[in-house]
């Protein structure tokens, strides 16, 4: 069965101050499809990514999100992950004292235990082998596994660690929040090629980006433009090229300022 994530008329605000960010987002992503989400700063792209994962900094005020017909918004963050949703964070937090390998082993075992409460988790030799394979395929140095999660990682290392986690957890729908930002051209190539390897019939992707250059590696099936908390324009890969060339002003003129909530 092909997994489908349906976002319907989603509204969300910042929990701390009630600032309205998402103002009626509609989007459907199927396993195997690559959707690019573009748009100016502050248009709500990151908020959408975080809301889908259940970040407590945001509150849903209207709308629904269905994962294969199940209410995603009713699930806790960890359940969403185990159901196949993944978020590659734009700014992953560092976790002192927890190594990347230890963290991923717990993440995998949490999945196995959710499926079978009797599960003792993945045997360590099997886990180590799996990690090495994934690290090799993404060109990640093995020493990464023993380092504290994101602690002292460079920008590029953090992004690669996010992609590595994605590779290990094999999500059905992956959301990548500006995984290309803050990278130089070499780091971008490594990260983008890593993502490219992971996309395919098994994984649907929502790739949030400002720039076409990421999409040179990962060809989107659909490109969407978000402004003022809504998706205002959707098209094929050519839309990204158009945006690269013309910027967002033409869309601002076309759609004007948002209605005040």
């Amino acid at each position, binding site marked *: 069965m092909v997994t489908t994530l349906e976002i319907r008329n989603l509204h969300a605000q910042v929990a701390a101050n009630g600032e309205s960010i998402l103002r009626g987002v509609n989007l459907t992503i199927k396993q195997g499809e690559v959707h690019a989400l573009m748009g100016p700063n502050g248009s709500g792209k990151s908020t959408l990514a975080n809301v889908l994962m*259940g970040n407590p900094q945001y509150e849903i005020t209207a709308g629904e999100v269905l994962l294969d017909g199940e209410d995603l918004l009713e699930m806790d963050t*960890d359940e969403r992950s185990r159901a196949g949703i993944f978020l590659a964070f734009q700014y992953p937090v560092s*976790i002192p004292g927890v190594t990347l390998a230890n963290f991923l082993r717990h993440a995998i075992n949490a999945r196995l235990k959710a499926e079978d409460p009797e599960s003792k988790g993945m045997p360590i030799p099997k886990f180590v082998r799996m990690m090495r394979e994934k690290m090799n395929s993404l060109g990640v140095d093995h020493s990464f596994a023993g380092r504290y999660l994101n602690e002292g990682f460079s920008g590029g290392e953090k992004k690669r660690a996010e992609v590595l986690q994605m590779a290990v957890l094999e999500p059905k729908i992956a959301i990548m929040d500006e995984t290309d930002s803050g990278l130089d051209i070499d780091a971008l190539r490594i990260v983008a090629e890593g993502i490219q390897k992971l996309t395919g019939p098994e994984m649907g992707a929502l790739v949030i980006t400002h720039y076409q250059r990421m999409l040179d590696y990962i060809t989107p099936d659909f490109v969407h433009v978000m402004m003022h908390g809504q998706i205002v324009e959707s098209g094929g890969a050519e839309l990204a090229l158009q945006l690269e060339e013309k910027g967002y002003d033409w869309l601002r003129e076309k759609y004007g300022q948002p209605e005040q909530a």
Partner: protein
Amino acid sequence: MVVVKRRSDALTQPRYSRDDVTTLSDKQNEPQWLCEARRAAWDVYEQTPMPHMEEEWRRTDYRSIRWQEADVMISANGVGEEVVPAKNREPLVGDTQGGLLVFVDGKVVHHEVAPELTEQGVIFTDLNTAIQEHSELVQANLGKAVQAEMGKFAALHAALWQNGVFVYVPRNKVAELPLHVVIYNTKEGASLLHNLVVVEENAQGTVQVDYASAEAEKHSAYFGGTELIVGDAANLRYVSLQEWNRETYDFSHQRAIVGRDANLDWVIGNMGSRLTKAFIEVDIVGKGSNARVSGFFFADKNQFFDLDTQQNHNAPLTTSDLLFKGAAKDNARTLWQGMIKSLPKMQKIDGYQVCRNLVLSDDARMDGIPGLEIEADDVICSHAATFGTLEEQPIFYLMSRGIERPHAQLMLISGFFDELLQRIPFEKVRERLTEEIEAKIVG
């Protein structure tokens, strides 16, 4: 006997007398020098008021102790080492043990020491036996580091300690096999044991001491004294893990004296007790020496831990490195008061003193007061106390990978302690502390 009335019939201090001191000395058939030392300590005890608003005590209110329960001396009633839980009996430092000494309710119920250690002249026995068999050695070292004058409870301890452990590693000898001491109480009341560890010049030793007691309803008091005498060019690794029941008030003075070109690696774990007031002090008296102190504490429910640490640089070219890491949950309270001191003109000293605190509930309170008194100008000294809580964004991050919230919290808390655990040179001690962390979080 002085009994001061306060509310109803509550005692404000334990009911001991000079006669108790004499009776104890007589019963144990102690040499003259010890009888005199005990009596002198008793004089100090009588002249010293119960601690109250002195600087090192004013944040610590121990007055909830029911002395009418806690001052009753625990006496052994024939139970053996089988009552000691496996985790407290298990050797944590090294696989092969050089010796095991188990006290139950103050009585030695197990004593063994490896022949190869005895052949080297290593002494590992209870203190009362040591006084009978090695009186001069004990006399030369007892009271070197901890004296009655240090406070009310130090004086009480010096006057009335019942037994304890004597570890002695002679000059140039290496006691490779670790020595393990277990102090376990099944009964409620008072106990006072003294740990005297002497590692002579160019010698080396490793000692683990476990304190624990069975769950109880009545209050208990432990008046502890620990002396670590590290000779010139000597090495001592000392691990102490305190896990008293939740009705025990622990008042202890623990002090190390470190000679020239020597190394002390001291690990302290404080998990148990209702209230702990520990004075932990390192005196570096010889040039070129290093002392490392690593402290773990985790308080929950109504526990109150007050850990006072002091690093005294009394010689130039010395290093001290103290890291304490602790957490508090429920309505627990912790307090760390640290101090680095140097004598005048002790140049080229490097003192490090940090206490990191993780506050796990709104009702828990943690305080940290670092201090420096340095009278030299060519020194490196740093001190800090930090405080944090479990933040929502790291929890969200871990949960976003499928890890359930309680497990995510556990990972973050364990991660917090990892920096400290990595300093502990014994894998099983690290494992044991990791288990304690989990038990505290779940419990």
